Every structure is written in C-alpha cells, then in structure tokens.
C-alpha cells in the first residue's frame, strides 16, 4: 500500500478551546476519532487553511502548507486539498456536473472519466443538487473534491447523513478512491468499524488533545 508523510504538529486557539496535536507519521489514510467538540473538524479546517494555527507546522506528502517559523501559510486555494465537509456544501445553484467540474479550473487535468465512473456520477450529472439523496450528495461532493486534483482528501464524517443501507456502498467508493486513485485521506468518524476499514493510522482526540494513536 502507498503511504505519504504527514506532519500535523500545531497549536490552534479558538476562543476558550485549545487544540494541540504533535504527530509525524507515514500513512495512506488517517482517521481522526473522538467525541463531538474534540477538535476533529478543526484539524481538517486547519489543513484546508480555513483556520490558522498559532504555531507549528502542517505538511502533507512533502508539501509544507503551514509553518509558523518559516512564515509559510498557503491560502486555501493553493493547498491542493479536496475538502468534503460534514454538511457537504454542494453549491445549491449549480447542477451536479457544475459542482463536479468547479475545481477543474485549477490546472492539471483531473482523471475525469475515472472519477465519474468510480463514483457513478453519470446518471446524476444533469440533476439539481436539491434532488439528490444523502448518499448521492456524498458521492457528488467526493467527486467534486477529487476533480480538483488534490494532494489529500479531507472527509468529515462522510457517512453521518447516509442511511445504514447505503453506508456500505459509500464506504466501498471511498476505499476504491484510496486504492485506485491513490489519493491519501484524512477521515473523521465516530464509528470504529469504518475507521478500521479506511484508515491505516488512527488518532484519538478528546478536548483538543491526542489521547492515543494506533497503527491499523
């Protein structure tokens, strides 16, 4: 299995809440686990450049996204992350295809056909996003993120809004993305079974601190 180096070593203050993480490792997919408010989404936001740590370094696949001592803080548009937030945030005024193609202006040609085939987007392409089911929305959001040729995929509880019947299917899509497109991912989840299937590195968080790390 492919792996890339991750450096998640930073301190981020958000009002009363302080997030501290000091992890350096090699992995293909990392899972962030922990109760609500433990800082999982904050870590994804920091990787995406939507929140700014006070100090430290964020580096993924040998690309420095943030380093306080070097004065590096890439803007979100230059970080090459594919972010699928928990609320999915599909652009409501665009069609499915409009959403999927939004990030392709970034440059290097994304594997359009393989993404569309892998996530079975074709039958959905002309539909409006408000006509989609929870599972379809997840697939479209993952496709949109992948089409921007990301160095890393950030998935925030991708199965939370999906009914149990469709979870298995989406989980398979995510595994295929990892194994066929070789895109490393950071995967936030509550569910232990999902984590075991997706991640080769698990970071357990509580109240903004790392409680344990496991190699699966």
């Amino acid at each position, binding site marked *: 299995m492919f792996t890339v180096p991750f450096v998640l070593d930073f301190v981020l203050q958000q009002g009363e809440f302080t997030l501290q993480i000091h992890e350096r490792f090699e992995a293909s997919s990392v899972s962030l686990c922990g109760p609500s408010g433990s800082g999982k989404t904050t870590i994804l936001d920091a990787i*995406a*450049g*939507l929140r700014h740590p006070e100090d430290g370094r964020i580096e993924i696949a040998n690309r420095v996204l943030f380093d306080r001592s070097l004065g590096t803080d890439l*803007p*979100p*548009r*230059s*970080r*090459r*992350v*594919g*972010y699928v*937030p928990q*609320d999915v*945030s599909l*652009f*409501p*005024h665009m069609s499915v295809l409009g959403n999927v193609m*939004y*990030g392709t*202006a*970034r*440059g290097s040609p994304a594997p359009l056909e393989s993404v569309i085939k892998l996530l079975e987007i074709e039958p959905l392409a002309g539909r409006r996003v408000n006509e989609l089911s929870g599972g379809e929305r997840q697939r479209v959001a993952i496709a*949109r*993120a992948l089409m*921007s040729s990301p160095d890393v995929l950030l998935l925030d509880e991708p199965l939370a809004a999906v009914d149990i019947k469709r979870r298995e299917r989406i989980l398979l899509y995510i595994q295929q993305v990892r194994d066929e497109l070789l895109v490393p991912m950071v995967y936030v989840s509550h569910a232990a079974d999902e984590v075991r299937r997706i991640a080769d590195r698990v970071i357990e968080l509580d109240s903004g601190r790392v409680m344990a790390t496991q190699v699966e």
Partner: protein
Amino acid sequence: MPGDLVDVTLFSVAMAGLSTVLMLVPGLALAWLFARHTFPGQSVLETVVSLPLVLPPVAIGLILLRFLGRYGPGGQLLDEIGVDVIFTWKAVVVAMTVMGLPLLVRSARAGFEHVDRRYEQIAETLGASPVRIFLTISLPLAARGVLAGVVLGFSRALGEFGATIMIAGSLPGTRTLSTAIYTSTQTGRDTEATIMLLTAASIAFVAVFVSNRLATVE
C-alpha cells in the same frame, strides 16, 4: 402635451436606468465589503452611505451643489477637464445615483449576509480566486437580494425630486417626471400633473411589485 409626457417619461426612465447602472459597481462592492469584512472606520462609512436615506433630499442636493458647483472642489476639477454637470442631464444622474445607492447597498448586503460562508470557503479550497468566488458563488447566491436592491435603487432614482431640483432644476433637458409634476402643479396645469402622477405611480408600482416578488418567491 402627450409628446412632452412621453419625452419626460422616457428621459426619466433613461436617467434612472443609467444611474442604476452607475450605482451597481460601487453598490455591490460596498454591500459585499460590509457583509464580509470588518475594518477600521466601517461604522463611519456605513453611516455616510446611509445618510441619503435619512437626510432631507434637498439637503443632499445642497451638499452636491456645494461640491459640484463652480467653486466646489469637484466642480473645479470638472471645470479643468471641461465637463459641466450642474443644471445638465448629468446632474440628474448624479442626484439619482446618490439617492438610490443606499437602498441598493442595504438590500444587496442582506443578500450577501444570507450566503453561507461555507460555500465560499469550499470554493476557495477548490482553487477558486476571490473574483471567481464572488462571481460564481457569492453573487448568484445573493441574487435575489441584489436584484431587489437594483429594483429599489431604480425606483428611488425614478422618484427622486429634492436633490434633482437643487442641482439640475426643472428645465427642458433636465426635467424628470417628479420635477415636471411639481412645475405643472405650480403653474396650474393640474390635468398634466395628474397624468404624470399616474405614469410615475404605475412605473413605481411595477418596480416595487417585481422587487417584492423577487424577495419572496423561491
């Protein structure tokens, strides 16, 4: 008289249309700035932009006259490049633009404030530049507020009287529906005034009706 009425109506609509176009860029920029940023002096700028809503239009007209008149700073500058504004059609456009701008800003700002920032953030992670985000995400999602603001700004421009009479007068070539109603009434031409009143009311009714529909229809 019917020929005059048509001329005055067309002139008013054209001037209001032109002033709406002119208020669009600064109006949208201010609306977006107020909705999305905080900066030093913001409250002062917001208050200045809103002043035409609360000051008597005649007072705004006097400010514009002092500024754009022969001895005003703006007037001297325009004089140097050979542009006459006061008591020309350009003064009508200036008055309409200044008076309509706050309504456009308020409505468009509310539109931008309703756009979930998450969409803009996700667009940025997908590599979009600030201009692309504004044009493809913020503006379309705020479209109803912006369109309602455009209609309100246009209606306000069309109904403008106080500032217009101060800096443009009611002369052939600067006469709008509003100023024409006033001069017709003053000179005892009541039927003419009534016809123009009905014309202005019809245009305003359509504009506000459209604005309300845009604000409520999904």
